């Protein structure tokens, strides 16, 4: 449009999408939340050798309200499933989910009564990481894939108004 020629030097033009996505993709804060063996590799990813800080993701937040990314690092039992769903619902949009390891992706070695065969039965998953456990490098690669996805999203997509939950759905009373 030739707009660039009109603005003074030192000013860049860009689209809102790309500047917001740039910010999101470079500071995705994961939820401090470990389930099973895979969590040990997640912690290893967070420490000095693998250094997830390169992705701006070193800040593991314990509160779901402050986190953008849920790394489901381990097997999800029937007892844990409602809790995970609740935590996911508590996270503010935009939010993403990585299913780390075969257990979180599809149940893995635990094809039995106790374990949910894939966390995608209860929450939507953006990236699946194979491995039992995935090496830290795999998790970093998953972060790469997630960043690619984040960059391709449109800001508007996350602004769809969600139906607010009724109070008794959030916190069942009585009984």
């Amino acid at each position, binding site marked *: 449009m030739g707009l660039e020629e009109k603005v003074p030097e030192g000013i860049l033009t860009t689209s809102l999408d790309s500047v917001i996505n740039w910010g999101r993709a470079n500071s995705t804060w994961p939820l*401090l*939340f*470990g*389930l*099973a*063996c895979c*969590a*040990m*590799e997640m*912690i*290893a990813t967070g*420490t*000095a*050798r693998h250094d997830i800080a390169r992705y701006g993701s070193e800040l593991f937040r*314990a509160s*779901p309200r402050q986190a953008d990314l849920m790394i489901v690092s*381990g*097997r999800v*039992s*029937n*007892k*844990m*499933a*409602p*809790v*995970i*769903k*609740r*935590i996911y619902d508590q996270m503010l949009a935009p939010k993403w989910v990585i299913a780390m390891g075969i257990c979180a992706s599809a*149940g893995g*070695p*635990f*094809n*039995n*009564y*106790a*374990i949910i*065969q894939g966390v*995608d*039965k*209860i*929450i*939507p*998953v*953006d990236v699946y990481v194979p491995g*039992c*456990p995935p*090496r830290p490098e795999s998790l970093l690669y998953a972060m790469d894939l997630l960043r690619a996805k984040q960059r391709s999203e449109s800001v508007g997509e996350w602004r769809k108004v969600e139906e607010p939950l009724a109070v008794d759905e959030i916190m*069942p009373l*009585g*009984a």
Partner: protein
Amino acid sequence: MPLDVAPVVRSYETQRTLNPPGIPALAPMPTGETDDTRRICEQFGEDIVAAGLHNGNQVVLVEPGQLKALATFLRDEPDLKYETLIDVTSVDRSRLPLDGEARFQTVYQFRSYSRNQHLTVIADCGTDPGDNGEIPHIDSLTGVYRGAEWPEREVYDLMGIRFDGHPDLRRILMPKNWPNHPLQKQAPLGGEEVPFTFTWDDPEFETLGSQILPAESTVPDLPPGMSRQNMVINMGPHHPSTHGVLRLVVEMDGERIVSIDPDLGFLHSGFEKTGENKRYKDFVYYTDRMDYLSAMSNNLGYCLTIEHMLGLEIPERAQVIRVIMAEMQRIASHLFWLATHVLDVSGTGMSLLMYATRERERILDLFEMACGARLTVSYIRIGGVWQDLPDAFVSELKDFLRVMPQKISEYEAMVTEAPLWQERLTGIGHISGDDALSMGLTGPMLRGSGIDWDLRRDRPYSGYEAYEFEVPTSDSGDCYGRFKIRLEEMRQSVRILEQAVDNLPSGLYKSNNRKVALPPRAELDVSMEALIHHFKLMTEGFHVAPGYFYHGIENSKGELGFFVYSDGSAKPYRLHVHGPSFNNLYAIDHISRGEMLSDVVTNIGSIDIVLGEVDR
């Protein structure tokens, strides 16, 4: 729509494995006698069904009515002095040729530390009529040994045996509305049929990644014994310092803790049931995933149990390699404990996490060198180890051992003398020796209360008798004492490792018994016989003679025990894991009473739990 939790029956579960005639069979009666069994028989006479030795363990089968009297006698009799009830489990024998015998049996493991004796007691359960079939029941031992409380709840939850006189018989692992008792033999394994024939037009793919089911929370209710007069605080299952998915319901009066009710089972993965549906050798891979911080020790504990039942000799070199791996794993586990403990207590102290994981990564690198995996190693197999150590391993390990003691001193310099650290740990989480014994605590929790016991030294396995090392103990019984013990244990492990690498013998790295251990890969190309053995082992596995056996090893967290009941087939009929974290966590209520909420975090770290093992 509530989450569909009812287990499905899969078609292949009904298929029978190929069994020779006469199998499945009941375990034979114990034979012979020892001083202890003679003493028990004298006292109880007719009420002892059988007593003697079975698979090298002392076993007593007792009439259910006399169980409690027997337990009291075992504890109080001066020539017996069985101070601790290590483990309670049960067997559902409904798939065995019972011939009118009782279907359910409960199995108890007693230990005398002062006399270094181990005794297995088995009792048949009586039955009461219930709504859906008969309900097995037996006397509870909680009045004799406090530590029986949780194991009995676990047996009730998973096997459905009621314990008469138990103060608090609730489900412990499964959700409270769970429809069955999963370890009963008629309960299906559950899970889903694995679809081997997906094509892209399969309807499953349409919903992939978006299959959101509502997962309804159950309404939390107040644990029994807690009062609404006090403040009740919920900690977990999603909490940064519970080391995983542990939920604690804490009752507080002002700043002080009145009681704690731990809610477990958020990571219950059905290990035992899965193990009963796998061939013996296939369960090794699952043991990694139980206590995922000490995978090697778990492998070792399981393999030793099965090898003992088979009567298998392990070559010298394999034994030493196993010791090397187990001790490295102990250091790695303690390093991780140290890092998270400091992080939990300080809240922000990330630096020790970074330092300790630096050394831990070196150990993981060594594991990777030996077997290609960092965490879930499955390196120790039945009959030996998976493959020989690579050439560079020993020099790398020596290199590591040279720097490690200095690093431990570095960590010590960072925290041991720090006044804040001492203030947060000294006198916190105190437990006396008698309480530790009656609660069945093991490992550093026991040694921290002045009981000088280490299975590696006192009931040696894998050739530990050949190594020189000290067992650190502390009389203080508090978190600081346990902290010092673990640091010293790392030093002792380094010492054992130094002796082991210097005396690493040459020879076989796994047993030559081709009926049990796989032939080396190279042999398959040249030997028809090796190929046949390989095929047999991979398709059918090996059979273990009918019987049962309990074996415990000293894990980094305490006594890790495996109880296996074999019916003679190629799969364990009953497989029970005694996880040290489970029993040690029981103490959290006792040691935290009267302390502050922030001390609970210290106590959890000091008990050193891994939820994969607590919940199994």
